[in-house]
């Protein structure tokens, strides 16, 4: 994301040699507005006309003065980037970056105390700086190491640090106001457009419903007689179905009787002594010398018969055997 900001010129890294660094301490850890910085600290600028960037770390105020007119919303001084990366080493000292010029960064107690550029390496100045800040270490960084340091410094810069260097006035209240001013009319237009479209759509649907209702009523009126006929018919069918279920549960007794008579072949000597049919039960008495199982099998195959048993059989004196069959009839539904 930071690279995208850089690519689209939303972030500018202010070159080391274009800035003048000044540091001081504050009684409290506060963030000063651009106007306050100018009023209080512009007098320390070596330039007649200067812009100012401030950064507060604990009670230390870092200031960078520069002359260029830069329009990007976020401006980060290069010396801050390098300091921010170098302080990770936790080593106070004078860091000298060797490039076309000599960039000097002095860190004491973890804070940036000085940053300046020398055209030539002036050992006297460096010794003076060491003495001034009570430091012993002089660390030389060559050009290749500098390139790596520079790259890492930007990439590892926490995103919230960008906020500290933004040049826009980002007071929440003002931001909300400016956003509101910006979106009020478009938003209003969108709402009106939505209401209009939604209303027209609803009207269209209601018109469609009205049209369909009219069509339905016309069709229904056309079919009124038929529908009533169907309803009457269904009612009648239901009524008769109930009647059949209740009254015509078992087959017709005459038909059953007829089918029972038919199981006896004309050549067979069988006399039917008694037949009674009551609801689903039939009691049948045959008098014959033929095998009772023969008629049992024939009765079993009868379409009206569900179950058949031989209730009893006995042989009277000087007469053929009398066999009594008990038959359970199939309900009509099972036919």
């Amino acid at each position, binding site marked *: 994301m930071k690279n995208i900001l850089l690519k689209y010129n939303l972030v500018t890294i202010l070159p080391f040699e274009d800035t003048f660094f000044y540091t001081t301490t504050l009684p409290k850890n506060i963030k000063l507005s651009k106007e306050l910085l100018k009023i209080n600290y512009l007098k320390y600028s070596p330039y007649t006309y200067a812009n100012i960037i401030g950064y507060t770390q604990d009670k230390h105020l870092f200031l960078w003065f520069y002359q260029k007119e830069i329009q990007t919303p976020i401006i980060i001084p290069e010396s801050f980037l390098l300091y921010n990366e170098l302080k990770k080493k936790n080593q106070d000292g004078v860091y000298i970056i060797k490039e076309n010029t000599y960039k000097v960064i002095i860190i004491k107690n973890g804070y940036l105390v000085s940053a300046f550029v020398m055209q030539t390496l002036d050992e006297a100045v460096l010794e003076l700086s060491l003495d001034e800040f009570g430091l012993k270490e002089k660390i030389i960084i060559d050009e290749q190491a500098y390139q790596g340091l520079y790259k890492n410094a930007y990439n590892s810069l926490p995103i919230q640090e960008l906020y500290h260097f933004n040049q826009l006035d980002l007071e929440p209240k003002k931001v909300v106001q400016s956003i*509101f001013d910006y979106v009020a009319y478009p938003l209003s237009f969108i709402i009106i457009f939505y209401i209009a479209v939604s209303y027209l759509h609803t009207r269209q649907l*209601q018109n469609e419903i009205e049209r369909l209702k009219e069509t339905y009523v016309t069709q229904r009126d056309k*079919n009124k007689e038929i529908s009533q006929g169907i309803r009457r018919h269904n009612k009648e069918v239901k009524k008769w179905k109930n009647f059949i279920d209740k009254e*015509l549960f078992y087959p017709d007794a005459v038909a059953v009787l007829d089918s029972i008579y038919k199981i006896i072949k004309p050549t067979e000597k069988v006399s039917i*002594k008694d*037949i009674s049919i009551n609801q689903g039960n039939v009691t049948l008495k045959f008098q014959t010398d033929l095998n009772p199982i023969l008629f049992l099998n024939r009765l079993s195959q009868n379409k009206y018969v569900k179950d058949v048993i031989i209730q009893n059989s006995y042989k009277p004196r000087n007469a053929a055997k009398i066999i009594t069959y008990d038959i359970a009839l199939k309900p009509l539904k099972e036919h």
Partner: protein
Amino acid sequence: MDTKKVIIFLFILVVYVNYTNYIQQNSAKLYAIIENLKVKIAQEKEIQKEHPKKEDLSIATEHLMFDGNKFNYSQAMGKLQEIITKSAKKTCSLKKIQWAQTASSTLWYDRLRMNLTLECTPKAFYTFTNKLKEDKKLFIINNFRVLKTRNKEKLYISMQLMAYRKNK
């Protein structure tokens, strides 16, 4: 903040809130109504396409029962006895005919029960039942019993013959 913009925006917001609360209708509901109406119209059109005739929808059941508008219970029983007697003429010997007691029915029809005792040949009995059916009335035979008589040709038949009377 631009006051004019605030006022316009607030006004539009009020319009929007009132529109959503009081005017805007649920589109899903309207679509459901449309779908429902389309289905109903299709059903009505289908009925027209099939075009069932009036006679297709009527069931000819009038002849199956005695008409409650023409006959009260006793008259219907009398009519039933007439039909039985007429059917038995020249076929079976009607030995006994007895009206069964019938509790008033809560159904849409009454059961007309007649206990009969007949003496006839098997063939004559079939003729008797066929004659009963000539009138196309619905008859149910219960408690049906067939016994042999001393006269080998004839059968002794007892039964409860049930017919129906449609209530008014």
